[in-house]
């Protein structure tokens, strides 16, 4: 597949209330590695199966939640092309200098109608640990904790979901893999830049800029079970699971970091081709779409966000 333009999610920056507790959670429990700490105190993390410098950035703050999510594009010239398309769509675009985050080249950024900051960048240094690329073993360092293989996607909550869908399709060439339509309108969208069932998703919500979860991909359903064992052993706050999503088909657990930001670990999910139809859900089956085994949304799904 000729994959051009926006390649995939690159990194997410989250606010945490207690940095040492957050580092322990994301490294020892989820299984990420700390790459470095910036002069301003931000901490940069990655999974050992990712090549690029980092995929999770933690920023100490007095509120929890979402700062930004950045996608990697294929080449530097893409940044100029997308800057024009985003500006033509009507969103003011700003510039972040190379090195504002260690190992990351220049970025462009803007705020969605949903209230979330999105960025694009083309260049990232690699960092260790990383996968081997010549006669590669399946891993270089033994996977630990929940054995996360990558930061995979985020689910964000905010208003103006129709506009957000239109923007991602028209300005960034994303495809909508699945959507939930209720009698009073569009409730939720799952969007991909490539062949994963989702790279980013949105649920309609009155408050702008809210964060539902950041997801980490695991290799197998057995790893989801291992993650559940770790959550009980270390008294991690669990929202729901292990269960499965009808939407994307991912086998999943929703849980919370020590600052109340929701995390997901999941395995599976189908492969999306750009000629596939958008899968659609209505109000009669939406419970099964969100949590396939429970066949109902839990109280927290629509109301608990940071």
């Amino acid at each position, binding site marked *: 597949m000729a994959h051009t333009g926006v390649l995939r999610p690159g990194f997410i920056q989250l606010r945490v*209330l*207690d940095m040492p507790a957050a580092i322990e959670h994301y490294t020892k429990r989820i299984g990420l590695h700390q790459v470095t700490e910036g002069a301003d105190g931000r901490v940069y993390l990655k999974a050992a199966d990712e090549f690029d410098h980092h995929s999770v950035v933690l920023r100490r703050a*007095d*509120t*929890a*939640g979402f700062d930004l999510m950045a996608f990697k594009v294929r080449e530097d010239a893409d940044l100029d092309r997308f800057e024009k398309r985003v500006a033509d769509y009507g969103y003011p675009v700003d510039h972040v200098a190379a090195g504002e985050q260690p190992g990351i080249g220049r970025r462009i950024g803007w705020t969605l109608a949903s209230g979330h900051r999105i960025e694009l960048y083309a260049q990232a240094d690699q960092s260790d640990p990383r996968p081997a690329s010549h006669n590669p073993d399946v891993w270089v360092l033994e996977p630990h904790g929940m054995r996360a293989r990558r930061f995979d996607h985020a689910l964000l*909550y905010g208003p103006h979901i129709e506009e957000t869908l239109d923007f991602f399709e028209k300005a960034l060439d994303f495809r909508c893999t699945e959507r939930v339509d209720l009698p009073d309108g569009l409730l939720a969208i799952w969007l991909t830049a490539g062949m994963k069932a989702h790279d980013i998703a949105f649920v309609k*919500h*009155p*408050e702008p800029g*809210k964060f539902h979860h950041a997801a980490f991909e695991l290799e197998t359903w057995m790893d989801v079970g291992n993650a559940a064992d770790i959550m009980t052993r270390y008294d991690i*706050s669990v*929202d729901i699971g292990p269960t499965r999503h009808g939407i994307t088909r991912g086998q999943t657990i929703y849980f*919370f*970091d*020590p*600052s*109340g*930001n*929701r995390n997901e670990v999941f395995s599976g999910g189908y492969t999306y081709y750009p000629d596939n139809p958008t899968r659609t859900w209505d109000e009669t089956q939406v419970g099964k779409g969100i949590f396939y085994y429970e066949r109902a949304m839990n*109280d*927290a799904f*629509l*109301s*608990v*966000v*940071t």
Partner: protein
Amino acid sequence: MADDAEAAAPTRSDIPAVAVVSAPGPRRVTITVEGHGVASATTEERVLVALERAQGFGRLTGLPCKLPVGCRRGGCGICRARVLEGDYRLSPMSREHVSAEDQAAGIVLSCAIYALSDLTLKLETARVGKAKGR
């Protein structure tokens, strides 16, 4: 006790029949949720976790809805409450949901407090987004 025994090489009569541990451990306290019932808790657990357990045992009645439980880690704000009486210690809570003035007035996120004595709480569930059900 074992350490003491090794250090002092006691005679048989020095060894107590029962080793009573008097180290400060969790203490039992009661949490009264005004108008809804009483939960038993320890000083080592988050108050919200004690309330969830009491709800499971049917000891909290007449709640306007199920006990609002979200992240259980001080971030989402859904378990907001006012402490009317008693002492507690705090773990981090998001300022988005409890301002410094709120905090001074006894507003807490019940998942972020640990009781140090018996407590009386009033639930003050925040209007979170579209809220419950649908």
